[in-house]
């Protein structure tokens, strides 16, 4: 078979992230959201600690395929130290990219390694795998946003 075709989706940077994921593990006493991929039963938990409207710590745990694990790993790199608003924008940009929409060069640059996952758009059956961690982060931020606003004076 042509490994070239596999290389289109599974670029080296994606394989590296999947094999050696960043920010993998659990954070004690940090809020998180757990989502599952109903087609394969994979479960990913994303935890985010926000201080002064900025993501201080982020981590993910759980198992999954190369795409979901790599996507979660690059996401933690990209979202680390971002403000809540920036993080929400990055999540939006990433989902646009994965759905095959074009992004500005600046927006792509902001996504860093995550931009490499843009090729997933050509593999529609794998979009759910790529989005899983990002959906969890989005929900987590929404929940934190809700409580954070309430506690702020």
């Amino acid at each position: 078979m042509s490994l070239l075709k596999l290389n289109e989706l599974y670029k080296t940077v994606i394989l590296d992230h999947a094999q050696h994921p960043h920010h993998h593990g659990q954070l004690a006493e940090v809020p998180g959201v757990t989502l599952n991929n109903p087609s394969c039963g994979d479960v990913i938990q994303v935890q985010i600690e926000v201080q002064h409207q900025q993501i201080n710590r982020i981590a993910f745990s759980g198992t999954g395929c190369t795409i979901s694990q790599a996507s979660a790993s690059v996401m933690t790199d990209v979202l680390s130290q971002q403000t809540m608003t920036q993080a929400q924008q990055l999540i939006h940009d990433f989902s646009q990219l994965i759905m095959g929409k074009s992004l500005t060069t600046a927006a792509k640059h902001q996504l860093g390694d995550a931009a490499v996952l843009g090729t997933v758009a050509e593999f529609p059956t794998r979009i759910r795998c790529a989005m899983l961690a990002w959906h969890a982060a989005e929900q987590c931020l929404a929940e934190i946003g809700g409580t954070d606003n309430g506690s702020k004076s």
Partner: protein
Amino acid sequence: MGKMIKDYRADFPILQTTINGEPLTYLDSAATSQKPQAVIDAITAYYTTSNANVHRGVYTLAAQATDQYEAVRDQVATFIHAPQRESVFFTRSTTESLNWVAQTYGEQFIEAGDEIVLTAMEHHSNLVPWQQLAQRKHAKLRYIQLLPDGQLDMADANQKITAKTKLVAVAQTSNVLGVTNPIKQLAALAHQHRAVIMVDGAQAVAHQSVDVQAMDVDFYAFSGHKMLGPTGVGVLYGKLALLEQLTPAQFGGEMIDNVDWQTTTFAAIPQRFEAGTPNISGVIGLGAAITYLQQVGWSAIQTQEKTLTMQLLTGLAAMDGVTVYGPLDANFHGPVVAFNVAGVHPHDVATGLDMDGIEVRAGHHCAQPLMQVLNVESTVRASLMFYNTSAEIDRLLTTLAAVKEFFQG
């Protein structure tokens, strides 16, 4: 006829196509089978020359449509060896047939404290309807466990099926492990305790002769689309004495005898259980599928499928780091093989194979409790039919080795 098993492949137009620039190697027939030209033509012919609603019109065209539709009921009755045509009625799918029994027989006869016995290998469609029923009725679900090689533990079946059992629901053939269960023995066990047995035949009907009387099952469900027929048509067989006690699950046109302002009397069985306009073209397509399967013949089908299954099992067992779930002996196997490659997620394996035109399933196969038993989240599954070839199994094994190498480095 003199047609060899390999000659039938040419009857399936889709098998001549390409995927990702490679010849389509379709190994997901357990999800849905491909359709021969004869089935496609029967559906087209119905819409081209015979389309009218059934059981209603007094005009010639309606009579023709009704005759064609009802002829398939006779065909199905013969195909599964039902004692009479009234025991057979058409549904949307296996899932609808199973839900129908839960919502009629289950609703009428299951009471608080009763036990419903399932197996650990059931598809969600033969599990969730009973789980919902058990919750509504405060009944208890019990599961017959499996032997280490994936076959049903009949000693456990003897323990689980007791005087408290009201209903036993079991797959004839597992959609993951490929094992075929001893239905006749299970039926005898259920009947010994005055319970009824409902069999999910979805994975069996296309691969072996089914005899509902010899097995002595009370209800038997299957789908058209896994046996060369179209999607959207299923069958439910029930023993007449049981069907006569059941209140219909759905009401409307075609199922009534007489409707007054306050009360309605129902049509005779089986019309009583077919409310509304049925899937007429689907039923006619199912009829063509049965005719086609009978032309190929069970002996040729089983020889081919067993040979290919053995080739696949042997090839997988010889690969380092590949785990096969279920028995390794093709004699205990339907043409369904679930496996995993160490360190490579099933989705990645399936995408890798897909790049080479090889279509397999990856996931939990709608059997999450079974995944717990196997201690995995998901598996790869290759499933075959007589239209597959030995060369295709070789392609799968070769590409699988390359995919494994790619991910394991």
